[in-house]
């Protein structure tokens, strides 16, 4: 499994298909019995990762002719295989969205081999050409949105100390932390980001303690990468710190403290997927994109964001949206142990598979990966 095996060819395929996907604007026409199954690893009301997917599923429910069935809290064991089969056998689902990273291998692969006529779309960006052709895996470059959060945070912080409450030191999380720090540093060279790992995806007491510890260290803007950011957002706001959200828009929790946030945009992507199927063009097996492809988005700026910060963030966003794009991880990048991790002269664009193996924290991040 895993990102290491992603070849350049898929990435090209993905890129080509992205352009096609954007061009397809035909009104979908479905047989009345098209059923789509969504599977979530946690509660779909978690105000975080799973809720973002459920919002995407809700967007599909509005399309006439589509029936959406959902199941929540399905563990990453053979239970998910049984849930998939149950959706197929008892509900007649023909398109399935197992939305958790750990569903892919071996569980979803097994099901895709067993039901070759059905379509499986996994969230995680893991497909390689050894995998079944009726399986696909998509993901969003949410680090682009984290970079913009970093820009806003770097210009809002008075102490230039930012904080990051993270679950585990895995590449996706490290990429977000590094992007956040690089965004902040791009506008405020003094900015540092201190990170605390809680060890798991949902540990409210640990997350609250990490938030307090960071603020005790002088941090005044925080963000996070855990399943439900509510604990961090509320506790940081109570201590008078500013926050950037994650997964979905948490600004109602702390309207005064909420600056912006990195959000998924599944409610735009899923209807697009359905259109691709309806027009007969199909969904590329490997599908990734960022702000430009509308897979991720940023929360609207909060009231505490200064005009200067808005301007800088809008400029950064414009660079991501531009035709040539923008590489967050540029050549000459040094990690926080002083080692050069990206040699000078080689910019790593978003689709570079090397970035999927990230195991370092960039200079300016306080913390360690192990």
């Amino acid at each position, binding site marked *: *499994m*895993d*990102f*290491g095996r992603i070849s350049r060819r898929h990435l090209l395929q993905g890129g080509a298909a992205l352009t096609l996907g954007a061009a397809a604007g035909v009104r979908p026409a479905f047989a009345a019995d098209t059923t789509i199954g969504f599977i979530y690893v946690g*509660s779909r009301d978690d105000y975080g990762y799973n809720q973002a997917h459920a919002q995407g599923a809700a967007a599909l429910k509005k399309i006439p002719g589509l029936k959406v*069935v*959902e*199941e*929540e*809290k*399905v*563990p*990453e*064991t*053979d*239970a998910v295989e*049984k*849930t998939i*089969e*149950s*959706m197929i*056998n*008892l*509900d007649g689902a023909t398109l399935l969205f197992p939305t958790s*990273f*750990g569903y892919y291998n*071996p569980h979803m692969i097994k099901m895709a081999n067993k039901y070759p006529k059905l379509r499986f779309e996994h969230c*995680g960006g893991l497909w390689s050409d050894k995998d079944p052709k009726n399986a696909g895996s998509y993901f969003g470059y949410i680090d682009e949105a984290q970079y913009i959060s970093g820009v806003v945070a770097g210009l809002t912080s008075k102490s230039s100390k930012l904080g990051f409450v993270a679950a*585990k*030191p*895995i*590449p*996706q999380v490290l990429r977000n932390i590094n992007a956040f720090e690089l965004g902040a540093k791009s506008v405020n060279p003094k900015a540092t980001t201190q990170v605390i790992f809680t*060890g*798991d995806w949902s540990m409210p007491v640990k997350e609250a303690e990490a938030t307090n510890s960071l603020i005790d260290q002088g941090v005044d803007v925080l963000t996070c990468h855990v399943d439900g950011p509510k604990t961090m957002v509320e506790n940081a706001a109570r201590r008078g710190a500013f926050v950037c959200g994650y997964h979905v828009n948490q600004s109602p929790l702390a309207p005064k403290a909420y600056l912006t946030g990195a959000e998924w945009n599944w409610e735009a992507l899923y209807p697009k997927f359905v259109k691709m199927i309806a027009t007969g063009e199909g969904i590329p097996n490997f599908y990734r994109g960022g702000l430009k492809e509308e897979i991720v988005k940023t929360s609207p700026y909060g009231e505490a964001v200064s005009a200067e910060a808005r301007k800088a963030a809008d400029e950064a966003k414009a660079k991501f949206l531009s035709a040539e794009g923008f590489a967050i991880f540029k050549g000459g990048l040094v990690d926080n142990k002083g080692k050069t991790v990206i040699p000078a002269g080689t910019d790593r664009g978003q689709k570079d598979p090397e970035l*999927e*193996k990230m195991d370092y924290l960039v200079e300016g991040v306080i913390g360690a990966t*192990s």
Partner: protein
Amino acid sequence: MTSEAADSAEAAGAIAPAADPGFLQRYGGTIEYVLIPGAALVGALAVFGIFVMLFGKNPLDLYFYMYQGAFGTWFSWQNTLTRAAPLILTALCTALPAQLGMVIIGGEGALLIGALSATSIALALQGMPPLVVQIAMVIAGVVGGGLWIMLSGALRQYRGVNETISSLLLVYIGLAILNHLVEGAMRDPASLNKPSTREIGAANMIGSIPGTDVHWGLVFGLIAAIASYILIYHTVFGFAARVAGGNIRAAKIVGLGVSKLILTVCFLAGGAAGLAGMVEVAAVQGRTNANLAAGYGFTGILVAFLARQNPLAIIPVAILLGGISASGGLLQRRLGLPDASVLVLQGIIFVFVLASDALYGRIGFLKGKS
């Protein structure tokens, strides 16, 4: 005398040939063992029906979908049996020590350690013939899990530490060890975003029972349950265990080696749960990661108590609970009930069955004249 001890004494009474072969006197006890839990189950389902009625759902739909999802089709049956397989083994982890009057609730920890041991040995023996690796995995799983619960037994025997609490604490400690190793020393560098050990290899997987989707873990469970039954009710060792369970002092007076009994029984109990961990690795996941902590160990406690700690009764009870969890998905999809409804139902059944303990020997027409 603890109630389990009373139960086992009664069970022994029910099996021993009675002097007077009157039908009710002879079989009254056995009938009770079917009738009372059956009535408790019906009562629990009725209460759950009323509960969902309060939320505007039709209880008849509920029962229909529960039946359909658990036993309605061949697919549903396979779903149920797959989920029952680990529960039989983890239930033995509670049921065996219960013969000695001990309450062990740490099957989840033994499962994790068993899985970790089995994976380690499989990785160490890469390149050996699959059968050798598989046998080594079974041994490693049993020994790993067995020693883990034996620790609780030893602490109880030699230090007087309460085994219920210690086995529970060992669950959390076992999980921390697993996470620590999986994210550190044993981590497959290619398992980027889902820290895992390396895979044991497709050739070493034990696969499914021919003609079904149910993995061999079910057969392991059936063998273990039947062997446990024979051990407890038809061997001198089992008799000694039950005597010791009734009264430790009496056991010491008649010269039983209580320490040896406790340690052996705890080892076998942990071995069963460790075997469940091995099966999860060798039949489902193919490696060890945090997904293994799926709660089978905790559901196993429920199974053991519902089966009144009888190893044979564990088999139908595990199938029943497997069925409930198999039908949980259908309840979510068809009735819009949240995932937690399965927990609520399990809780209600548990409460009813425990409360029904009070009825044994009190149903007039089943009472023989003894």
